[in-house]
C-alpha cells in the first residue's frame, strides 16, 4: 500500500509527530491559536453572499434545496436569521399509523407484539426524515434532533410505544422556546420517567438514575470550566429524594404524571448547601424549587450554550474549557451567550439568533469544519437533491432507506446509544462507517429496490410486505442549473458549490469533470443524449459524495 503523499508532505497538527507524553498541551494550544482569529460575537460584517447563506442553511435546516438557495438569494442576514429562528405555531400532524394509535384510549403494551412497537417507531423515523426533507426555512427540526440527543431517551424501553412520539412533539414545541420550562416538563415526561427509572424512585427505595443525569447531562454538566465539580454525590441523592413519587396510572394516552404522596419522601432535603423544606405531600412544589435552584447556578447556562455551540458551530472535543483556545471561545462566545440565555429567560431562539449573526459563525475556520452526522449526510443528501414535491409513496420509500442508512452508520433515531446521546464529531467516522457512508450514498444515486414490513389497516393488524423502488432525481437535479445544457465546466462548479461546504480542490473538480466527459472534449457535452448525461452524472455525483469533502459541512 502506498501511503498518501499528503501525509508525508504536510505537517499535520497533532498527528504522529508527537509521541505521547512529550507533547505539552501548551505547544498544541499555541498551534491551534494561530488557526483562529479572535472569536467574537460581534455582528458579522463580511460579505453576505450565497456561500455564507448556504453555510447558515446547512447548519440550520440541513443541506438546502437549490430552490431554497434561489429563494434566499435576495434575503438580508437579519431577514434570514429571523425566519430561521422564529418559533413556528403549527405542529406537524402525526403520520397515519401513529394517528390511529393516538386515538386509541388505553395504554398499549404487548410483549408478544413487539413488531407493532417496531412498526410504530419505524414509521416515526420515516415521518421525521420527511419533515426534515420538506421543512420550511426554520431551525425547528434540527433543534428537535438536538433535544432528542440532549434528553436522550430510548424509544424501545417504553411499555407504551406512543410515549416517544409525545416526547418528540414536546421537543418540536419547545425547539426555540423556554429551556427551563422544557426541563421541568421532561423531568416528569412519561417516556423519561420510564427510561431513567423515575417511576421506581420512591421514598423507601431511592433511585438516583434521573437525578444524576438531570444534573450531569441535562443542565449543569460534571464540572465548570476550572475543573470544579458542579454537584456532589450528596446533591444527586437529595435531588433523587426530591423527585420521589412521580408516576402515573397507565390507563390512557392523556394521563398526567402526578407526584403520589405515599411514595414521596416528605423530609427536608439539602441540595447545593440549601435546604428545601419537606412540603409534606406537595412534591410538585419541591420539583419547582429544585429546577429553580439548578437554574440559579451559573453553570447551567454555560453548559447548554457550550452544547449548542458544539452542535451548530464546531465540535472539536479537544476544545475543553481547560485550554487557552477554548478559554477564548469560552470568554468571548460562551459567556456572553450564556448571559443572553439567562437574561432572555432561557429563550433558546435568542441565543441562536445572536450566534447566527456573529462574525465567529462565518469564520473561514468554521465553514465546512463540522463532520456530518448520519442524519446530516443521508437526509441532507436527499434534501439537497430534492427538486419538487414527492408523492406520499415516493417519500415513504425514500425515507425508508434513509432510516436504514442512518441506523447502519451509527445514528438510530429513537434509539441513542445511551443517556449521554451520540457523541458527534469524529466518532461518526471510523474505518467501518466511512466506507459504509460511501456505500449508501452510492445507493441513493444508483437507486434500489426495497421491500419491508409495514403495518396497514387496523392498529393491531399483521404487517404486510411493501415493495418499491427509490432513487434520487439525478437528471432533474442537474437540470436546475442553467449551465446544464451547454457549459459543463460551469456545471461542475455549480454542483460542487451546491453540495460541498468544504470547497473542491482544482484536482477534485478536474476528476469530476473527467467523470462527465469521459475523455471527450468539453463541447461534446451539449450534444449528448440526456440518458447518457444522466449515466455520467450518476458516476460524477457518486465520486463527489465519496470525497472527504462531502463528509464535512
Amino acid at each position, binding site marked *: 500500500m502506498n501511503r498518501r503523499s499528503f501525509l508525508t508532505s504536510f505537517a499535520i497538527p497533532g498527528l504522529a509527530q508527537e509521541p505521547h507524553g512529550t507533547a505539552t*498541551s501548551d505547544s498544541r494550544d499555541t498551534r491551534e491559536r494561530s488557526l483562529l482569529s479572535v472569536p467574537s460575537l460581534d455582528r458579522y460584517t463580511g460579505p453576505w453572499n450565497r456561500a455564507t447563506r448556504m453555510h447558515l442553511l446547512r447548519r440550520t435546516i440541513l443541506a438546502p434545496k437549490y430552490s431554497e438557495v434561489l429563494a434566499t438569494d435576495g434575503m438580508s442576514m437579519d431577514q434570514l436569521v429571523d425566519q430561521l429562528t422564529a418559533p413556528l405555531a403549527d405542529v406537524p400532524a402525526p403520520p397515519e399509523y401513529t394517528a390511529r394509535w393516538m386515538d386509541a384510549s388505553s395504554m398499549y403494551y404487548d410483549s408478544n407484539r413487539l413488531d407493532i412497537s417496531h412498526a410504530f417507531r419505524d414509521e416515526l423515523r420515516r415521518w421525521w426524515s420527511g419533515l426534515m426533507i420538506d421543512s420550511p426555512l426554520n431551525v425547528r427540526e434540527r433543534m428537535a434532533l438536538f433535544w432528542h440527543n440532549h434528553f436522550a431517551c430510548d424509544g424501545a424501553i417504553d411499555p407504551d410505544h406512543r410515549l416517544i412520539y409525545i416526547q418528540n412533539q414536546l421537543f418540536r414545541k419547545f425547539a426555540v422556546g423556554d429551556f427551563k420550562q422544557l426541563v421541568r416538563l421532561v423531568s416528569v415526561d412519561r417516556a423519561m420517567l420510564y427510561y431513567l427509572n423515575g417511576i*421506581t424512585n420512591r421514598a423507601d*427505595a431511592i433511585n438516583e438514575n434521573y437525578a444524576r443525569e438531570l444534573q450531569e447531562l441535562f443542565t449543569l454538566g460534571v464540572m465548570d470550566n476550572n475543573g470544579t465539580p458542579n454537584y456532589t454525590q450528596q446533591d444527586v441523592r437529595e435531588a433523587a429524594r426530591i423527585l420521589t413519587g412521580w408516576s402515573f396510572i397507565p390507563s390512557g394516552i392523556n394521563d398526567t404524571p402526578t407526584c403520589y404522596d405515599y411514595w414521596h419522601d416528605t423530609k427536608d432535603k439539602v441540595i447545593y448547601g440549601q435546604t428545601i423544606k419537606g412540603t409534606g405531600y406537595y412534591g410538585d412544589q419541591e420539583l419547582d424549587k429544585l429546577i429553580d435552584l439548578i437554574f440559579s447556578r451559573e453553570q447551567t447556562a454555560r453548559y447548554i450554550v457550550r452544547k449548542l455551540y458544539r452542535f451548530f458551530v464546531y465540535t472539536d472535543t479537544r476544545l475543553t474549557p481547560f485550554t487557552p483556545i477554548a478559554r477564548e471561545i469560552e470568554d468571548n462566545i460562551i459567556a456572553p451567550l450564556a448571559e443572553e440565555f439567562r437574561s432572555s429567560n432561557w429563550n433558546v431562539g435568542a441565543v441562536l439568533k445572536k450566534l447566527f449573526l456573529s462574525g465567529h459563525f462565518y469564520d473561514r475556520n468554521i465553514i465546512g469544519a463540522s463532520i456530518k452526522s448520519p442524519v446530516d449526510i443521508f437526509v441532507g443528501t436527499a434534501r439537497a437533491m430534492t427538486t419538487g414535491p414527492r408523492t406520499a409513496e415516493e417519500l415513504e420509500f425514500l425515507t425508508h432507506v434513509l432510516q436504514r442508512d442512518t441506523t447502519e452508520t451509527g445514528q438510530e433515531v429513537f434509539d441513542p446509544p445511551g443517556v449521554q446521546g451520540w457523541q458527534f464529531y469524529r466518532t461518526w467516522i471510523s474505518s467501518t462507517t466511512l466506507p459504509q457512508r460511501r456505500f449508501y450514498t452510492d445507493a441513493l444515486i444508483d437507486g434500489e429496490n426495497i421491500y419491508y414490513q409495514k403495518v396497514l389497516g387496523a392498529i393491531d393488524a399483521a404487517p404486510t410486505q411493501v415493495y418499491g423502488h427509490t432513487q434520487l432525481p439525478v437528471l432533474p437535479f442537474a437540470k436546475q442549473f442553467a449551465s446544464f445544457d451547454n457549459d459543463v465546466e460551469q456545471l461542475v462548479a455549480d454542483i460542487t458549490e451546491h453540495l460541498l461546504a468544504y470547497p473542491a480542490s482544482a484536482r477534485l473538480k478536474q476528476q469530476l469533470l473527467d467523470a462527465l466527459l469521459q475523455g471527450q472534449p468539453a463541447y461534446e457535452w451539449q450534444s449528448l443524449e440526456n440518458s447518457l448525461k444522466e449515466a455520467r452524472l450518476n458516476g460524477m455525483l457518486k465520486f463527489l459524495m465519496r470525497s472527504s469533502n462531502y463528509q464535512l459541512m
Partner: protein
Amino acid sequence: MKRRTFLARTIPATLAAPLIFNGFRLDALGQSFLPALAMDDASDRVLVIIQLAGGNDGLNTVIPVDDDAYYKARPTIGIKKESALTLNSEPLLRLHPSLSGLQHMFNDGQLAIVNNLGYSGYSSSHFTGTEIWNTASGSTTADSHATGWIARYLQQEFPDFPKTLPDYPPAVQISPSTSSIFGLASSTIGIALSDPKSFYDLVNGKPNVVDDDVNDTFAGREWEYIETINSQSLGFSTIIKDAADRAKNIATYPAGNALGESLAIVARLIAGGLKSKVYMVSLGSFDNHSNQLETHADLLSRLGNAVKSFMDDLVALGIHERVVGMTYSEFGRRVSDNGSGTDHGAAAPHMVFGTPVDGGKMFGGLPDLQNLDNAGNLRQSIEFQCYYASILAPLFSLPDSRLSSILPVNLCDPTHRIPIYKSLAVGVSEGSRGAAALLSISPAPASMESTLQYRLTRTERVVISLHDIGGREVLKIDRGIQSAGTYAARMDISRLPAGTYFCGLRAGAFNDSRPLVVVR
C-alpha cells in the same frame, strides 16, 4: 510499503548473521521461546479486552455469600448462596448462577478474579468513568487531551503510525466505531470492523476518492482526519479478510449472542495469522437501575457463554498459549439495592483468562462491606491502573522504562503488581515448548530447495516461514492444523537471492528458527 521502523531498531544491522540471531535471542528479555527473527517481532501475544459497558454490578457477579451485610444491603436482588456457583479455591465467594462457563474456567485454572478494582476520587458518570478507565492517565476527570492507555502502548510499537502504516492493524475492535482506549492525540490506532468480509467488500467494492488539497483551518484539520481513516481502511481491509478466510472456528459459539459472534471473529483473525496485538469487544446494558435480577442474569449468561466458547476455541485452534483476555467496566454498583436495581457505585471485580493466566485464584481480597465510603460504595484494594500494568507488562515483555510512559507506575510499583500469570514471566509454559521440535533443515546451504523436518507432540496449527536478514518475510507455508507426528515441508528457494535467511517453525505457541544459507 515501508518496512516497520521498529524492526530496524531491534536488529543491529552491523552484526554478522548468526550473531544477530543469537543476539536477538539474548536481547529478548530472557524469554527462551523468543525466536524466529522478526517472525513475530517481539512477541506474537495477543490481548483481548472485553468492555462491560454501563457499570457491571460486581457484587452480584462475584458474590460474598458468607457476608450477612451483603444480604442485608440487598433484600430484593441479593443472589442466594445456594443458587450461586462454587469456586474450588475460594469458599467465601461464589459466582452468579448464569456464569457456569466462567465457573468451569476458574476451576480449571484458566481464569483468575481480581477483586475490588477502582481508584480514588472516582467518577459516577458513565461518560467520565469510561474515559478514565480508557485513558488511565492518572487523572480523575475526563481529560479529552489524554490518549488511550492501549494507544500509548501501541504507539511505542508503531512510532510512525499513522504516517507510516504497518502491514497489519495494531489493534482491532469488533464494533462500528473505535473506543477512546485506542485514541491517539489526533487519530486512532484501532481499526473498527463489524465483520471482515463486509469490511473488505465495503472498502474495495468501489474506488475511494482521495484528494491532496489541505486548508490550514479547523475545517482542513477535520478533512485530514477523514483522509487518515480512509487510508487505514484501504490499507488493512485485505489483510484482515485474508486472515479471517484462512481460519475456521472449531468450537461452537452460542446462537444469538453478539459478544460470542465478536469473539468468534477475534479467534479467527488470530488463528488466521493477523498480527494485531490488541482486540476489543464489548457487551452493553449493564446500567441496571431497575429490573436487575432478570436483566443482569441475561447479560452475565451472554458473557459467560461467549467467553467459555472463545476459550474452548482458542485451545482447539492451538493459539491459547499466546492469548489473554480481560474485562473492565466504568464502575461497579452501589452496595445497597434501590428496590429493583442498583445505582452507580465504585470498586468491582474483573476477570483475566487464558492459558498463561494463573487461574483458579482470586486477587485483591474480599469486598469489605463494613468499610464503605460516604456514598455507600465499596473501596478499592487495587488501583485499576495496577490491574492494567500487571496484565500488560509481562504479556508484552515491557520493562518499567517503557511501562512508565504508558501507565502511571507510581500507582503501581513492581512489588505491588498482581502475579496474574503462571508462565509468562519466565517465558511461555514448558508445555508449549515441548509441543513441537524443529528437527532438521537439509540440504543446507541450499540453492533450489530445502526441506524442513519437524515433529508435533499434539495437535497444533503449523506455519513455516523464511525471513531475510532485514526481517522481511520472503516465504510462508501455512500447514494448517496438524495432529501429532513427524512431518516434512519442502521450501522452494529457487528465486531467492543468495544470502542468509532464517527459517522459522511455529506450532501454536511454539516458535523456533534456524539460519539457512542460500547459495547461487
